[in-house]
């Protein structure tokens, strides 16, 4: 496992999944590896009252009903479309769901403007076709087709980034549950096995780029994941992801809780400022999502580990914050400068703690950049 930069969830949590599977005696739909209740337990973590011998950690943070609705959708006839702002954890939830259900979260099609129908259905190995003609052997199945053949969950990331005609290729897959291969004379239909379903994600900020057709909408159940505004949950997510990150980079670095508070507070302040801003020039270009918070922290950790004193300081955090959020010059820098002077400075005088150092680091970073 250590030779993987980022192990997919089924590898990372393999042992936990095995254990859950061994104790799961609830009825399982289709060819699911875990029952719906166990899937929920795997994603949302266990509690003492569940009466398990070991603790299962919480992997996705958010409203329980979203997870329940998603699981139930996958057990039904329809596909699942997770929709929400960037950085709300849609893809992570999709990965966890497919991991828990079929132990394979890698059957992924990435939607882009260049995605074609071949990426969704199948394509041909040209040299084999020339050598042996068109046959099932010379066919290259797409991840979705593979999912159909194995009764697994196929994932389609950023569905709305691909063009409408490509999206519509999913309609027949979701309703008829087969793909016909007209190029072949025999064995020319690939049927989906029980357990097949699709989890798609869509970015709500992309609305209007390539809108879903009504026919496709009908075949998906939409679960909207809202932006996390609960500070407690957000802190948990940041902590959870940071631990994962440290583990991935095999770093031994301590993230002081006070610095985590500083980070959360500064993002909360900047979000409030963005909400109050009148025009685009008055707000940062960044969406200030939880994912970006994690990005800032990651940057700071890596920086302090390799160039610093192997300890995370408020100064490094501030310079990472400025470095990550200042994308436009001079607008973003001006906003950050205003924030440092108008909010952080009085706070550092009042509260002290890590704030004065944070202020100093921020000022230095702005001075370097401008």
């Amino acid at each position, binding site marked *: 496992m250590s030779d993987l930069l980022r192990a997919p969830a089924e590898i990372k949590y393999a042992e936990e999944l095995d254990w859950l599977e061994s104790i799961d005696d609830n009825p399982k739909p289709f060819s699911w590896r875990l029952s*719906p209740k166990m899937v929920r337990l795997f994603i949302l973590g266990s509690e003492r*009252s569940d009466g398990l011998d070991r603790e299962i950690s919480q992997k996705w943070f958010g409203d329980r009903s979203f997870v*329940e609705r998603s699981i*139930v959708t996958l057990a*039904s006839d329809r596909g699942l479309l997770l*929709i929400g702002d960037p950085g709300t954890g849609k893809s992570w939830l999709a990965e966890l769901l497919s991991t828990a259900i079929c132990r394979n979260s890698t059957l992924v099609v990435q939607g882009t403007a260049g995605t074609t129908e071949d990426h969704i259905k199948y394509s041909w190995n040209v040299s084999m076709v020339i050598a042996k003609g068109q046959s099932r052997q010379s066919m290259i199945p797409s991840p979705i087709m593979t999912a159909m053949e194995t009764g697994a969950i196929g994932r389609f990331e950023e569905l709305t980034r691909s063009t409408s005609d490509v999206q519509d290729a999913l309609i027949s897959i979701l309703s008829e549950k087969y793909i016909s291969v007209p190029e072949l004379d025999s064995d020319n239909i690939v049927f989906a096995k029980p357990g097949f379903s699709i989890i798609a994600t869509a970015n709500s900020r992309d609305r209007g780029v390539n809108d879903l057709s009504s026919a496709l909408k009908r075949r998906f*159940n939409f679960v*909207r994941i809202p932006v996390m505004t609960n500070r407690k949950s957000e802190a948990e997510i940041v902590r959870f992801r940071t631990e994962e990150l440290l583990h991935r980079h095999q770093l031994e670095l301590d993230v002081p809780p006070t610095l985590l508070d500083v980070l959360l507070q500064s993002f909360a302040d900047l979000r409030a400022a963005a909400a109050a801003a009148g025009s685009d020039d008055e707000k940062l270009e960044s969406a200030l999502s939880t994912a970006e918070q994690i990005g800032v922290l990651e940057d700071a950790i890596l920086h302090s580990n390799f160039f610093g004193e192997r300890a995370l300081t408020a100064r490094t955090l501030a310079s990472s914050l400025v470095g990550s959020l200042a994308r436009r010059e001079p607008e973003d820098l001006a906003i950050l400068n205003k924030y440092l002077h108008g909010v952080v400075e009085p706070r550092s005088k009042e509260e002290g703690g890590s704030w004065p150092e944070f202020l100093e680091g921020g000022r230095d970073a702005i001075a370097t950049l401008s």
Partner: protein
Amino acid sequence: MSGTHEGAFEALRAQLQETAATFADGPGALEGILLGIVDDVDRAVREPLEIFPVCHHSPASAIAMARRLREKQPKVVYLELCEDMAPLLTELRNCRLPVAVQSFATEVGGFPAEWSPLSVVAPITEASAEYQAIAYALDTPGVELVLVDRSSDHVFQWDARADHPAEPGADPGAPEAPPAEEEAVLHGDAIGVEIGDLRPRFAELEEHLLRHGRVRHWSEWWHQYVELPLGDSDHDTYRQVMLLIGSLFRRLAPGDADRVRVDEDRERFMWTRMREHLAATGTDPADCLYVCGAFHAASRVAEFGIDGTDTFEISPRSATKWLHGLIPSSHAAIEAQFGFAAGSVSIAATVWAKNVKRTRVQPYRLTGQAGAPSKAKKIAAGAPVPAVPASDKLTGFLRQPPVLDRLDEAELLGWSVEIVRAARRNGYLASTADAIAVFETSILLAGMRDRARPTPYDFQDAAVTCIEKDSVPGRRDVRRLVEIMMGGDRVGQVGYDALPPLARDVHDRLAPLNLKLQQRGVQRALLDITSQPALEQCSDVLWMLRYLMPHGAARPIMGERKLGERPIQESWDVALGTHQRALIELGYEGVSIEQVLEQRLRRTAYSPQATAATVLEAVEDATLYLRSRRIADELGTRALEVLSAERSVDGAPEVLRRVRRLLAYYRTSEPVLPPWIESFVKTGYAHYCTLLPTAFTDDDATVRQVAAMLGFLFSMESLALSLGCDRTQLELAVAQSHPQDPSRTALLWAAQVQLGHLSRTELRARCDELLSNPMVVPAYPRYLSGFVHALEPVPGLTDFVVEAVSNAFGRLPDPVLLPWLPTLITTLRSGGAELAPLLIREAGRIFPGRLAALDAWVPPWRAPQGTEAVRVARRTDADHGCTLLAAHPATCDAMASLLGCEEPWQTTVPQPRGAALAALHPATAAALEAVLSGPGHL
């Protein structure tokens, strides 16, 4: 009597002790709590006066109550409801539920004035235990209903705000995001009281229960874990379980001292009142039933029980004058006020209706209750069932496995089909396939949440999952549609007979309009007063309602009310049904709308902030809406007092406008002016004369205000002088005024012209001087703005103002002129909206109307001789009137001798008339005619 055997709970006690020992490290807090709960239950069950614990909006409580009342048939029912609300309960039969009993007070005595108006509401729904108790007690002969909770006055006496004034609001159950819909604000900002408030007061406990119950709201938890298991249980089980829950929540509540104090005081109050009643009437406690929230049933105060101590002293009520009434309520309003999940009260109502059908319990219903099904028939009360000592039902209940409600497939199918239809009606692209998906998803979701039967909340989740897409096509989303489907919001209505006299009077007086005013929604009223003079009364009522009620209750579409005008035709949008609460609250202020209006006008006029302008407005309103000379005179006198006390001139423009209007009205409609307005003019004249010199130099007074003062002085001058004022006073005031500011200086010049101290030629010379002096030219626009304002007091200067403005355009250098133009426009628009037409009319008269004429046009002020000639001609023309005097000199001589004039007669030589000149030179006239009527005429 349903007491228990001694030691009935011993087995349970032993078991709990063992449990505590197993789960906690040793005997301690846990054991104390668990055994304490059993003690509480035991104590309440053993109480000779039967305690019936209830929970608000709980169908299970209501069913149990109906069943118990039929069995026991108590002679006295004690109810946990504010004792002062008792007389109103019988009026419930005239209403369509839900309605709220309201206590209301505007005259606050003993509480901080900023709390006013005080309002307490107790909403009552049909699916509640308290309604069962009320209906039984009121409709069964020989049964007495006694409300024993603290009065509305005590609600505020014990309000924690008195101790912590900084705390906002006193609504403990305020929801996080109250819906802003119209139905949700039916209670206004009243404080809600409720029978059987039963909810964990310990946030962590509630969170824990919700989490493990796999539910989202407290209402859902209650439905799932209390309502369902208790649905068909017998009386003893119901009672013991409710007592247990009450005691549990009580023992696990954190020590919010204020809240605990109020709760315990209420319990002391209730038991004291009950003991007083029992002692006074000599009723056997066994024939009584005490209905209270389960929380209070598990009370540990010393006063608890009929043998409790009598140490609690009920404090006397404050001097506040309380009024009572019924106001319409709604499920949404109840949910918003008490912080329930949206739709929960509606779901409770649906469950109640279903339970009634299923259990065949005959519920009680007040005779004549509006909205009652017609088949409701009274069944004869059977003989009371003798009480048997209750045994321990708790052990069995606590041990039984969770109640698994069977899947009601038909019901779920019905819901699924119904929601798809509703979604389609609301613009969703939903189809039968969605109905199937919703059905399937509901079952799957319920399965995931460990229940066989999907609750309405599971169904809601399933419907949202399957039908809601990326956007909401209509006004309502799927969540709301499910809420509506599950019973929807129901808005109550207070029947005519239960309305206060004022509201009944309004309805009676608007009867000729033939509208269904009780109905919610907007209705259009058309009043053709010329053909039906009787409708004028309705028009009066509608105008008063418009004045008194919130916006939208009565809105005129056509027609206006002005001084001295009679209505001819009017059309109105009336929404009295929607604003029933406002109308009822108006009823607390008086018995007729005239009385309320009079009070309000008086309150405005006598408030410490009143200014002369606001009091004059009240006078005008009294004349307009009440047509009452008496009140107008009284308020007018008050206006006089206020004016004399005023030391600023802020309200001068408004005072001038209103006095002019009132004067015009009185002159046309009354034989003599009311004495107050005469005094007002007199006082005003002296008052403004006194203030004039200061106002001219005061930086705080604006030009407009000074102009308005002058306007008052000049336009009221004749009346004031006839009433004995002295003009010298005004002349002195003007002479004492030495303004520095250019605009005020211009105003002063205008005043001097009006008084004859300055001629137009002099004024013109001064203006010319300003224009030719490069040092003061930049200030010229400010002089002009003074002149524009001077049109108010001295309208005769209009032509001069046009001249001055024209000069400014002609002679001012661009750097001065151009920056000033926007100021001129804004001044004219904001300050001189009524002056601009005057200026424009005069300009239209002076300037040539046609483009062709412009080349040859010379401004009148540039042709002084011509102007003089015209003036002379006019004067000589005017002299012709004197021929009559010359022909009959006797009159003039007599007058002259009377006045002491000795000058001899002067005769003038008659001069040819203008017409004679035209007759001499007819060619000019002919040419003019040709120009005017010719084909080339533009």
